C-alpha cells in the first residue's frame, strides 16, 4: 500500500516549523505506524536527507514514550492503544495522513515530533511517591488491602504517562494524568499518610504548567489505557478535602 504523509518538521524550539509532504509506497498493511516511519526515515537517509525525529521505546504500549497526533487524534484512530500499537491496516491505500506532535504550551517541541514532557516529571516529583523506611524487604501481604481498592488503584496505575490526555484536551489540561497518579496511591493504605499533602502539591504543581479542566471528557477517549474521568472526580474530592480537613486531627503530617 501507499500513503501520503504530511509530517511536522521543526529543527528546535526556536524554529517556527512547517509541514513536509512525503509519498511512501511499497508498504505492508501489517506494518505498525512507527515501522512505516522507520521505512520512510531509511529512504530519507539514503537520499541524503535528515530523518524525522520521533520517540519510541517499548513498541508494545507500556512505556508511554511514543505519541503522535495522527489526523487530529492523539495516538491515531485506534481506541485504547498507543501510537506504537497502531497498524497501517487501519488506513486505506492512498490516504493522506497528517502527523503532528502533542500541542500544548507546557509541552514545547524539542525536534520534529518530539516534545518535552518534563512538566509531568515535576508533578510526580511533587507528590507521586510514598515514603517508606528502606532496609530489608518486609513480609508480603503484611498490609491488608481491600480487593476493590487494589483493583481501582491498578486501573489508575495503568497510566503510562504518555501525555495524550493533554494533547486531546481542548484546554491542554493535565487532570487525567494527575488524577491517575494521585489515585493509584491515595486508594491504597500505603498512600494514606501523605494523602492530602500529595493531592495539594501535585495539583498545585500541575496548575503551574497546564490549562484547567472544564470536564469535556476528551482525555478519557484519547487515553491508550482508557483511564476513566471518574478519577478526576476523585482527585477533586481529595483536593477539596485537603483544604477543609484538619490534618492534625486526621493524623496527617504537616
Amino acid at each position, binding site marked *: 500500500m501507499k500513503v501520503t504523509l504530511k509530517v511536522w518538521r521543526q529543527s528546535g524550539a526556536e524554529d517556527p516549523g512547517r*509541514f513536509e509532504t512525503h509519498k511512501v509506497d511499497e508498504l505492508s498493511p501489517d506494518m505498525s505506524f512507527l515501522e512505516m516511519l522507520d521505512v520512510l526515515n531509511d529512504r530519507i537517509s539514503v537520499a541524503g536527507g535528515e530523518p524525522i525525529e520521533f520517540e519510541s521505546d517499548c513498541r508494545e504500549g507500556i512505556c508511554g514514550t511514543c505519541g503522535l*497526533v495522527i489526523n487530529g487524534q492523539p495516538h491515531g484512530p485506534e481506541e485504547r492503544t498507543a501510537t506504537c500499537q497502531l497498524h497501517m491496516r487501519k488506513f486505506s491505500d492512498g490516504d493522506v495522513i497528517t502527523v*503532528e506532535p502533542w500541542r500544548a504550551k507546557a509541552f514545547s517541541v524539542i525536534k520534529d515530533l518530539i516534545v518535552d514532557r518534563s512538566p509531568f516529571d515535576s508533578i510526580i516529583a511533587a507528590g507521586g511517591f510514598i515514603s517508606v523506611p528502606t532496609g530489608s524487604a518486609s513480609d508480603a501481604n503484611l498490609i491488608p488491602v481491600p480487593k476493590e481498592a487494589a483493583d481501582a488503584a491498578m486501573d489508575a496505575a495503568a497510566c503510562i504517562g504518555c501525555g495524550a490526555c493533554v494533547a486531546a484536551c481542548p484546554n491542554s*489540561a493535565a487532570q487525567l494524568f494527575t488524577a491517575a497518579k494521585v489515585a493509584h496511591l491515595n486508594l491504597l493504605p500505603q498512600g494514606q499518610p501523605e494523602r492530602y499533602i500529595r493531592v495539594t502539591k501535585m495539583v498545585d504543581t500541575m496548575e503551574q504548567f497546564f*490549562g484547567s479542566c472544564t470536564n*469535556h*471528557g*476528551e482525555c478519557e477517549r484519547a487515553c491508550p489505557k482508557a483511564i476513566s474521568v471518574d478519577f478526576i*472526580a476523585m482527585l477533586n474530592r481529595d483536593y477539596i478535602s485537603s483544604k477543609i480537613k484538619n490534618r492534625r486531627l486526621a493524623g496527617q503530617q504537616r
Partner: protein
Amino acid sequence: MAITGIVLLGYIATHMLGNLKVYFGPEDINGYGEALRDLGGHLIPRTHLLWLLRIGLTVAFVLHIHAAYSLTLLNRRQRPVAYAARREYLIASYASRTMAWTGTIVLLFLVFHLADLTWGAEPAVSGDFERGEIYNNMIATFSRWPVSLLYIVANLALGLHVFHGVWSLFQSLGISNPRFNKWRRHLALGFTVVVIGGNLTFPLAVLSGILGESGFLA
C-alpha cells in the same frame, strides 16, 4: 464555578416555577410578585429580604462570570500552536465547547430581560409596561414576536449551558459513584428540559393566544 453555578441553577428553577403562575391568571402571578416583596412578613421591613436575595444572586453571578472569564483566558493560552488537522471531538459535547458563548448570550439576554420586565427601561420595554402588573407586562412584551424570538433563542442557549453545567458540577465537586454516575447525565438532561421547556412555554403561549389579555384561554 460549581458552587456559584448551583446558586444560579436554583434561581432559574425557582424562577421558572414561579412564572408558571401566569397560567392561573393575572391575580395569581401579580400576587406572587407582591408576596416576593413581602417576603419575611411582618418580621422584616418590606422588600428587605428580597433585596438580600437579589444581592446574593448578583454576587453569585459576578463570581461565576469572573471565574469563567479567567478560566477561559487561561485555557485559550494553553495551545499557542493549533493542530493543523481538523479536530474531531469524540466526547466533548457541543454544549461543553460553547460554554463561553452560551454564557455570554445569557448575560446579554439578562440585561435586556431586566430592562424589559423588571426596570421597565428603554429600549427593551414594551409600551404598556406598568410596574407590578406582571401579567400584563408579560403579555405585552411577548406580543412583540421579535422579543419572543429573543427569549426563545436565549433560553435555548441557556439550555446548552445548563446541560453541560449540571453534569460538570458533579465532576468538579467530586461527587462520583459508580452506582449513580449514569444518572448524572440523565439528571442534567431532565433539569434542562424541565426548566428550559417551562420557560419556552411563556412566549409560545402568548404568541399562540393560549395566554390571552385576561387569563388562560381568555
